[in-house]
C-alpha cells in the first residue's frame, strides 16, 4: 500500500508529514521508519501541546516544521496520537486538530483496554482507536484515505 500523496498535498514540492504524538521514543521511532518506507515524513512530538504549538494554518492546510538537520516546512497530512499523553489527552488533541482541519486523517493508539478508554470520553466522529500492539495494515486502514 502506497501513500496517496496526490490527493493530500496541496503543494507538490512540499514534504508530506504525519505527526506521531507518543511519549514512548521506541514506538515513535518505529512509526517514523514506517512512514519513511512509504515516502512520508514524521513529525514526532511527545505531547499534544508541543504539536499544536508547531502548527500554522495556510490556505486551509496545516503546516508544521520538521527537523531534517535544519527546520523544514512541511504539510501535515495525518496524525497518529497516543491516547494517554502528558498534558492534553489524545482525544482532546484529536478534537483540536479536527477543528483546524476537518478532513485530517487521525488515528488514536492506546495501550489501555476498552473500559479504561471510557474514562477519556467519546472519540470524535470518524476517528478510530487502535489498541497497542497494532498491525501496521490496520493503522493504514484507520488513516484512510492517506494510504490506499
Amino acid at each position, binding site marked *: 500500500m502506497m501513500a496517496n500523496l496526490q490527493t493530500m498535498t496541496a503543494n507538490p514540492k512540499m514534504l508530506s508529514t504525519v505527526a506521531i504524538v507518543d*511519549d*514512548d521514543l*521506541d*514506538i515513535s*521511532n*518505529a*512509526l517514523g*521508519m*514506517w512512514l519513511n*518506507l512509504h515516502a512520508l515524513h514524521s513529525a514526532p512530538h511527545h505531547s499534544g501541546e508541543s504539536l499544536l504549538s508547531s502548527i500554522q494554518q495556510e490556505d486551509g492546510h496545516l503546516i508544521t516544521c520538521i527537523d531534517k538537520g535544519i527546520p523544514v516546512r512541511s504539510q501535515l497530512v495525518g496524525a497518529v496520537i497516543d491516547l*494517554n499523553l*502528558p*498534558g492534553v489527552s489524545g482525544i482532546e488533541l484529536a478534537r483540536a486538530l479536527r477543528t483546524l482541519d476537518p478532513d485530517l486523517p487521525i488515528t488514536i*493508539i492506546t*495501550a*489501555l*483496554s476498552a473500559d*479504561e478508554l471510557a474514562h477519556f470520553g467519546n472519540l470524535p466522529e470518524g476517528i478510530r482507536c487502535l*489498541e*497497542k*500492539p*497494532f*498491525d*501496521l495494515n490496520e493503522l493504514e486502514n484507520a488513516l484512510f484515505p492517506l494510504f490506499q
Partner: protein
Amino acid sequence: MIPFDLRTAFLIVGLLYLLLPTVTWILLTGWHSCQVSLWCSGGLLIGCSLLLVAMTGKLAEWATVSLATLVYLISLFVYIQSLRLDLGIPWRKRWIAAAVMVIFLTFEWFHLGLQNFSLRVQFNFGVAAGLLLYLASLAWRIGREEQSPSARWIACVYGLSAVSLLFRVITVMGSDRVTNLLNEGLSSQLIALASLFSNVIGHFGYIGLALDRSMRRELKAAAELARDEEGRRLGKQIAHLDRQRAIGELAASLGHELNQPLTAILTNTQVAKRGIQSGRFDNTQLTEFLDKIVYNTWRARQIIERIRSFIRPSTSPCEPVNLNLVVFEVAELVAGEARHHNITFGFSPSIRPVHVAGDPIQLSQIVLNVFRNAIEALTLVQRREIQVSCICRDGRAILSIWDTGPGIAPEATGKVGTAFFTTKTNGLGLGLSISRSIASQYGGTLSIANAKAEDGGGARIELNLPALPEEKR
C-alpha cells in the same frame, strides 16, 4: 511439761534456722535475686536471734533479750522487704531503719525506763505478731496473684507464728512477774513449735514458689516465642497478600507498560519485513531493526521480571540493598499509573549508593505503598508531583517521599498507619501498617507527616533505617 529444757528447743530451732536458709540459698542457685538473698538472710537472722534466746542464763541479759529482740525485729523487716520486692512495692531502706530504731527504743524504754517487764513483753510480742501477720498477708497476696499454693503455705505458717505470739501476749497480760521466753510453759512451747513450722514450711515453701515461678517464666517465654513465630509467619503472609493485591490493582497500568515494548517490537518487525520485501533496506539498516527488537524484548522481559519478583513470597533474606535502586525499580513499576494521571516524579538519588540490610522485596513493598498512596491522593489536586530524596546521615539511611496532594487531615494524623484505619472508600487500611512493621523488623521507623507548604504541603513519608557500613556490603 516438756521433758527437756526449752532452751534446747530454741537451740535446735535456731540451728535449723541457720541450716534451712543456707539450703534454700544453695538450692536456688541460678535464680538468685535480691528477694531470694533477703529471704535467706531473714532466716539466718532469726536463727541468730533464737540462738541468743537459747543462751539465756549463759550470756548477759542485754544479749539474750535486747540483742535477740533487735535481731528478730530486723529479720522480720528483711522478710517483709523480700516479699514487697516480689510484689514490686519495696519500702525505702531508711524508713525501715527508722521503724526498727523506733520500735527497739520503745522496747528498751519499757525495759530500762519503766522497768515494766510485762508491758515490755506485750509490746515486743504484739509488734512481732503484727509484723508476722503483715508478712502472712503479703505472702497470701502473692499466692493469690500468682496462683501459687507454696506462697499460701508460707502465709499460713507465718499466720500461725503470729497467733502463737499473740497467745503469749495474752498470757503475760496482767502478770507483773519478771518473765522471759523460757519461763512461760505453754506459750513458749507454742512459740518454739510455730517457729519450727514457719522455718521448715516457710523455706521449703519459698523454694516451691521460686520453682513455680521459674516454670511459669519458662512456659510464658515458650508461649511468647510461639506467638512471635506465629505473628512473624502471619505478618509475612499478610505482606505477601498485600503485594499481590497491589500488583493486582496495578495490573491495568502494568499491561499498558508491557504493551509499549510489544508495540515497538511489532511495528519494527513489520517495517523491517516490508523493507526486505521491497528491497529497500540494506544489512546495516536491518541490523538496526533487529537491535531495536532485541532491546524492546528485554524491556518487556524486565517488566515481567519486576512483577514476578515482587509477587513471589519473600524468603526474608537480609542482604545489602541499595535504597536508590529500590526507589528506581518501584518508580518503574508505577510509571504507567503515574503517567496515566499526569504525575511527575522528581527523584534526586544521592551520588553514593545508600545501602541498608533487608529484603529487597519487602523494602520495595514499603516504597510501592507510599507511591500508590501518593498517586491516589494526587488525583484529587491540580499540581501533581512526587518528590523523592534518599540520603545517608549519621549512620541512618533516610528515604523521604513527599507529594503535592491534599496531605493528611488533622483528625487522621494520629491514626494514619495503624491497622485497618483508612480514609479511602476501597482501602483495607493495611498498607502503611504493613510498611511500618517491615520497617521496624529492620530496626527502622516509618513516619508520616505533612510536608512544608513550600514543598507542596502534601503528605511526607520518611523511612529511616540503619545504614549498612561500607565494610559489610
